[in-house]
């Protein structure tokens, strides 16, 4: 076997593995979309219908517009307020993501340039993430009910900012660390103020990293379920909580409706991810400043 054939074989092997992996990743999405297009009778059939024919949009009308197409499910459908949940999700995930990354970035800059956090303190921050959320959920529920933060935007946003801050801090710090300090010194010696140096030199250089961090934290907060379930009631329930309501002991498993909502929950993330994919590639490769 020549070296060339060996190289070709190796590369075909790599692609075969990647194709297999792609299948594993994409199949649930495919199944979700297909199920969302099936009439109720096909949700449970065996062998399964792979591609519904004819497909129906009724599931979307139920899940997103709250139209009751089938009186059998009146009971469960009555609790759905899909657009309200969507709005809640956007407000809560969006606000907490921006707050978390902004705060993380400020801390990271201080840690990277001024050593305001010791190595130990930095690791303690990371350990925040190692606490099982369920351990925190109930105590926080008690506190929140006392101080009136239960079922409020402020309550969920606070817990999201705190729980994602370690990621924001660590990720943005790794990007700031990559900006050579001399670049900042050069700007300073040319007469630029600290604020101007950060705005004109540091921020543009870590932009991709910040965008990647924003995306990462957004995924976490957008899909968070446990805290949202525990700390919210009807007022601010988010999309993941809504999603769970299609599976219950009394209503049965409303797969079509659930998937119709699920597709709506996933699509915004995919859209955002696609819109910024250039930044993601650069941000996650952590090498954008190498010359």
């Amino acid at each position: 076997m020549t070296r060339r054939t060996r190289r070709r074989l190796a590369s075909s092997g790599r692609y075969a593995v990647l194709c297999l992996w792609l299948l594993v990743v994409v199949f649930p999405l495919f199944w979700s979309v297909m199920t969302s297009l099936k009439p109720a009778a096909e949700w449970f059939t065996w062998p399964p219908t792979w591609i519904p024919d004819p497909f129906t949009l009724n599931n979307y009308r139920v899940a997103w517009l709250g139209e009751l197409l089938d009186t059998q499910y009146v009971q469960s459908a009555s609790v759905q307020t899909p657009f309200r949940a969507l709005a809640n999700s956007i407000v809560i995930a969006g606000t907490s993501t921006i707050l978390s990354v902004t705060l993380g970035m400020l801390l990271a800059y201080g840690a990277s340039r001024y050593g305001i956090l010791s190595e130990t303190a930095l690791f303690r921050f990371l350990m925040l993430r190692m606490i099982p959320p369920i351990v925190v959920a109930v105590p926080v529920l008690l506190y929140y009910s006392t101080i009136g933060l239960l079922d409020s935007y402020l309550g969920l946003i606070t817990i999201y900012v705190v729980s994602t801050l370690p990621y924001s801090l660590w990720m943005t710090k790794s990007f700031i660390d990559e900006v050579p300090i001399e670049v900042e010194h050069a700007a300073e010696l040319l007469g630029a103020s600290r604020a101007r140096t950060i705005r004109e030199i540091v921020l543009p250089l870590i932009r991709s990293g910040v965008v990647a961090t924003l995306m990462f934290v957004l995924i976490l907060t957008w899909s968070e379920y446990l805290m949202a379930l525990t700390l919210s009631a009807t007022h601010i329930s988010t999309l993941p909580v809504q999603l769970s309501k299609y599976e219950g002991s009394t209503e049965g498993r409303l797969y079509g409706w659930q998937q119709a909502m699920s597709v709506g929950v996933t699509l915004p993330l995919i859209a955002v991810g696609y819109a910024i994919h250039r930044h993601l590639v650069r941000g996650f490769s952590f090498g954008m400043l190498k010359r």
Partner: protein
Amino acid sequence: MAQIVLSKLRKEFKGTVAVRETDLRIEEGEFLVLVGPSGCGKTTTLRMIAGLEEPTSGEIYIDGRRADDLEPSRRNLGMVFQNLALFPHKTVYENIAFGLRVKKVAAPDIKSRVEQVAATMHISHLLGKLPAQCSGGEAQRVALARTLVTNPGAFLLDEPLSNLDAKLRKEMRAEVDALHSRLAKTFVYVTHDQEEAMTLADRIVVMREGRIEQVGTPLEIYHEPANQFVASFFGSPVMNLIPGIVHRARGEAVFAFGAREMPLNGLGEVREGPATLGVRPEAVRLAGARGHHPARVTLVEPLGKETLVYLNYGPEALLVAVTPPGVRVDEGANLSFDFDGGRLYLFDGEGRRLA
């Protein structure tokens, strides 16, 4: 133009002393080179002048004004960094214009000044490019231009040429020199390269372990080194250092090394005791069979304009001689050598200059 005075300047980092009480007066328009091995405190000294490092104690005066508590941006100094520190996301034009925009220079002035400085640095064709698209030498010019355009009172350069290859380094060295002559401004230049120091400096400051060992013109430093460290730091090939003992025989000072002796009559009064004789390679003269010190040739390195001859004059005792290229010597040959009496240095056990 700026005169910079350091007074009892000291810097400690977490208990270790980087720069000991340093007094130095840098004259207006002078090209001063701080030189020494890594860790000698030369860069720390430069960074204290720039304001990037806060002195532990001592004072800095720029043009007679106390400057050590001024922000770096208020000292009217320009600095070129070892890694250049160009702004990677800005074009060459924007890099150069940055300092002017910060100082709120009017837009048309910015354009003309950037273009003018780009022309003098021969980088007009690069203005639209990003730093990453420039070669090493081009990036070097951009870094100089960026500092130049703001018209600072003094230039601080921290090993600016160390990332270039040998040929380019020599070219840029000549350009830095020409730049200094044209601007007639104060240059403070840090390097670990003795050749760079010799060729560029009006005055050289030799540092070691946070202390100034000697200040002087290049020729003073070369011909009248204050101690063994300075003597062996300058010159290529390095000075031969021959360990031995000074004692008196028949009323005269004699330097004994190995099984040999040589009179020290050319060197004046010297104390007895262990000492080191310093001989520059060009002060070792090959003398065929007529010299005082027999030796064996171990290696001959013809360099074209001169030839280096390595001589073994005793067990483990080696020295280098520089000879004109025409001199024919064979490896393994036995011959003898003499020292050029007028150019010998004698250091005591601590490396202090005796004579």
